[in-house]
Each structure stands twice: as C-alpha cells, then as structure tokens.
C-alpha cells in the first residue's frame, strides 16, 4: 500500500549476523524508519513477512537453513506468499558473478555488496522508492524486470538465441 509519510514505511532485515542486523536496523532508524523487524534466516524472514507486512526487505545471501536466494524465491513464487511484489535488496559479501546471477534470477530487486557504506545503502533504498520496477512473468521467471535498459534499436522478437515465445499473462 502506498504510504503518505516515509516514516510509516516498515522494513524487514534478514541476516544471520546479529552485528549486521543491528547495524542495518540503526541505519534505517536514521532515515526515520521506526518500524524495523529482524529475522536471522530466510525461514524466520518468511514468517516475519506474513506477520508484519514490511514495505521492503534487506536480506543477506548466505544463511542457514534457508538462504537469501531460497527466501527470495519463496517470496516471489510461493502460493501462500503475503506479497510477491515486495522490493528485496540483497546485501551480500558474495560478489562472484554466478551468485549475483542466481540472486537476480531468484527475483531480487537490488544488490548491495558488503562491506556496505551508508551512501551505498541509501542509494539502493532511493532506487526502490524512486524507480519501482515492473514485474515480468514467463515460464522460468517471475520477478522485477531484469533489464534496466530497453534497446529501441532492437526490432526482432527475441533477444537471445534460446529465447522461446512466452505467453501473454495478465497479472
């Protein structure tokens, strides 16, 4: 639901490291976001999502037993998901290409590399607030539109060699 005041925004922080959770919580408080809920892994995060209905989520990637990628998949795809459209910022020390791609393919909205800075965190939050991403659905993916640039010069029906023709689905 669209809020009239930014200090009414609610955030969920999912991280197995208590120091990191506490730091992110405090940085969100600095912005005037008073309602911040913490969870120590993806399982607890999913329960908190249903219970508190946050407006956006900051989640770590590497956690046990449910990591950030599985958590994101559940949020986007689970039949009982409370909000499949909720913006998810993945905060991770994993900057390897395969892990970033796995996170993107699970449906994260933004990636934020650790070690974080105040500026980088606030910039990602600005991005989700100012530029809400359209969501796309096809056979193999549901989540924010992964393409940030739409090439006007491209006139063909598909972008990749192995693209198949998806069906139009109205959501």
């Amino acid at each position: 639901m669209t809020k009239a005041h930014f200090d009414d925004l609610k955030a969920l922080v999912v991280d197995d490291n208590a120091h990191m959770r506490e730091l992110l919580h405090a940085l969100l408080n600095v912005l005037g976001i008073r309602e911040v809920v913490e969870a120590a892994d993806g399982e607890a995060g999913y329960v908190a999502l249903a219970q508190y209905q946050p407006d956006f989520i900051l989640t770590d990637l590497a956690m046990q037993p449910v990591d950030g990628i599985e958590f994101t998949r559940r949020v986007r795809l689970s039949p009982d998901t409370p909000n499949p459209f909720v913006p998810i910022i993945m905060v991770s020390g994993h900057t390897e290409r395969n892990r970033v791609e796995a996170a993107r393919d699970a449906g994260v909205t933004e990636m934020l590399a650790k070690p974080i800075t105040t500026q980088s965190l606030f910039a990602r939050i600005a991005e989700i607030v100012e530029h809400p991403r359209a969501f796309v659905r096809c056979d193999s993916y549901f989540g924010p539109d992964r393409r940030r640039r739409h090439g006007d010069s491209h006139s063909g029906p598909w972008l990749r060699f192995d693209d198949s023709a998806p069906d139009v689905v109205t959501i």
Partner: protein
Amino acid sequence: MPGERNQDAGERLLPNGAAIIAAENCPALLTPAETRHFAALLRSEAARMRGENIVAARKQSLTEAVLGEVSGLEHAKDQSGTEHLYAHAHEIRGLAGMAGLSTAGRIANDLCHYLDALPADITLPDPMTVELHVRAIGRAARAPREAEDLGTAVAETLNRLAARNLTQTRSAVEPVRDAPPEAAKPDAP
C-alpha cells in the same frame, strides 16, 4: 505495438516484441510528493553523516566480531573440508570494511575467491596457501596500523601465490580428466 502499453488490458509489451507481460500495477511505496521528499533525505549530506556516525559508534563491536571470526578461521584451517574456512572468511570480508579493517577484509575476500576457484573435485586446498592467507588475515585484523603500510604488498603476494597454486592444481587435475577410459586404452605391447 511493441514497447507500448496496452491500456485496455493493463499490460505493457516489452520492446523486443516478445509478449512477456509486465505487471506494472505494483503500488509505489510512497506518494509522488513523499517520494521526492524521502529521496532528498536519502541523498542529503546530513543523513549520510548521521549514518556514518552510527557505523563509527559500532566500530569497536564490529572489530570484536571480526576478531571472533578470525579465531574461528584459525581453528577452521586445521579442520577437514573447506566449509567452515569459507564461512569464516566470508563473514570477515563482510564485516571488516565497516570495522576499519579493510586489509583483513581484502585478504579474506581473496581467500574466498581462491576457495571458490578450486576445481570441483578438489576437496583439500593447498595447506600452505591457506595457512599464509589465514596468518595474514589474523595479523591485519590484530595490527591494523601495520596492515595499512604493508597490507597491499602482502595481499598482492598472496594473490600471486594463490593464482600459481590454482594453475598447478588445474594442470594436475586436467590430464587425469582428459585421459581415455581404461577400456579404450590400447593394449600394452
């Protein structure tokens, strides 16, 4: 028309013409006026300074957390497998920068990359490469001033060592992989 919104159906076709639907009806988090207000705050120097003060105030506890992970790393290097080793190095690379221990974070990051780059069928990394990385991380975390002076040179030396070790490991593994199966080998004379 590709790229244009079909108002009646409430959908937008993507510019490439493929009819993947865009669900554009996700509500904005804030009203337009409040979005501008909040974005200005997010970009303000005042908010950034308050955030940096928050991080600075937690520097001591973050340093203690990093040192705890360093102890875990030193213990994990003597255990079998790389799971615990990787987990501690990963935590250090995530926390160390915010604790002002960027050299320890950098070397921990390099150790993660080294472990990630090992061929899948190699379960034991080179003990000397691991040992030197772990010692350097410990030293950099416990003597940050020294790390400021020497950290870059140490990290670069360790990087070269890890790269050389990976090359040797791969070349040792690949001939075995590429060898013909036993049955296909010609009979010995």
